[in-house]
């Protein structure tokens, strides 16, 4: 079974490596969104720094949305999803492996770009580190919930707008605690409590989401 999980993981990474646009474009989108916020306010406006956590978190959410739709759709179209279901392997670990690979090439670059963009928006010192840790803890939750929504809508021909409508309400706690941690750190307060909340959400999502996503996928194949 470990072999099967590993095979799915490697296959996803190979696919991503051969189509570089899929992980480069969300990154470019992310940088552009944040830079447009910078251009939208007056030069050297100090309020930009206050809004930086929210801008960076929301930008990361939107950029991560771009790649979600294809997580299961291509596998469903070319039949490999059916093979996975029929392989006799339990589906949840395979789904979890796909999501992990998706996080690695789709969300992890965003998490690493976040602190750099925070520097561009004028954050310095501890808040940047808190932002980075927050993004590392929050983006897996985002990918898991996003993959769940993608699994629900995999049979819908054009799920483009539906997907964010399903995902973003569920992401509210992640934005609240992620941006809240950075705000607390920039005021010199301890940021551990909101970071623990982010970690708790991630653990919950890691435990439950692969199972509900697998159920959603099976539902579309009935």
């Amino acid at each position: 079974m470990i072999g099967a999980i590993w095979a799915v993981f490697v296959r996803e990474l190979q696919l991503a490596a051969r189509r570089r646009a899929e992980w480069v474009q969300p990154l470019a989108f992310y940088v552009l969104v944040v830079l447009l916020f910078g251009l939208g306010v007056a030069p050297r406006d100090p309020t930009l720094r206050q809004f930086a956590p929210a801008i960076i978190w929301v930008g990361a959410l939107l950029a991560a949305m771009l790649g979600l739709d294809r997580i299961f759709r291509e596998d469903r179209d070319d039949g490999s999803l059916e093979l996975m279901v029929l392989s006799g392997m339990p589906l949840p670990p395979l789904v979890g492996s796909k999501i992990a690979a998706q996080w690695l090439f789709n969300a992890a670059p965003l998490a690493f770009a976040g602190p750099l963009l925070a520097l561009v928006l004028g954050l310095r010192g501890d808040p940047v580190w808190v932002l980075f840790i927050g993004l590392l803890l929050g983006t897996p939750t985002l990918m898991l919930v996003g993959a769940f929504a993608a699994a629900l809508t995999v049979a819908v021909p054009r799920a483009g707008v539906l997907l964010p409508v399903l995902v973003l309400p569920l992401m509210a706690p992640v934005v609240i605690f992620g941006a809240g941690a950075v705000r607390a750190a920039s005021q010199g307060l301890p940021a551990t409590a909101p970071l623990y909340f982010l970690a708790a959400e991630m653990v919950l999502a890691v435990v439950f989401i692969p199972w509900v996503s697998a159920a959603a996928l099976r539902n579309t194949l009935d």
Partner: protein
Amino acid sequence: MWIWFHRLASPPSFYRTAGRFAPWFLVASLLLLAIGVWGGLVMAPPDYQQGDAFRIIYVHVPAAWLSLLVYTVMAVAAFVALVWHMKVAEVAVVAAAPVGASFTALALVSGMLWGKPMWGAWWVWDPRLTSELVLLFLYLGVVALNNAIEDPRSAARACSLLALVGWVNVPIVHYSVVWWNSLHQGSIFRLSGPTITWDMLWPLLVCWIAFTLFFAYVQCVRMRNELLFRERNSRWVQTLMVEA
């Protein structure tokens, strides 16, 4: 003991039972609503701080309570639908979502109307208000997902999964006033007894029951319609239509 449960699980028998109960729910709800509105708007004394504006709680609190109750009903029905593949439970999930969205919208709008004179703002970014708004979007997500998937049974199961995952939000809304330092009032129901006078309280309780019964009525009617539509090719619906 489980016979009633199995009987309710069969669409024709649920259709009959819901049809028998629905008118009584409606009559009881309208009666209690009339008493509650009369008690709340005429009998209850004005508040010493808020004057007559407090009277909006007779709409606001029952609507907010139902916005959470309907979601919980939906989540329980979703669980039943997923575990036992029960058609009636699937229909219950799909039928409850727009009703719950309406109650959530009503709670938000009535709260805003009250907030403008009392807090001086239509909207504040307060945990309870925000999570109630998120709840509205969760309901709309279920409605949108149900509309997007063509096959009704597959759509209902997808909605059930979404409802279960979204259920995480319900305790957050409920306890947000306790957990966070919120502008929103705390609950008037404490272990030490209610914090408002009986003259103000009894119309609220009556409205509360009236709204809940109204939901029961609407849910019965909507589930009957949905069942008729989904089972339109089955024999029991056709016999029913011939008889009618």
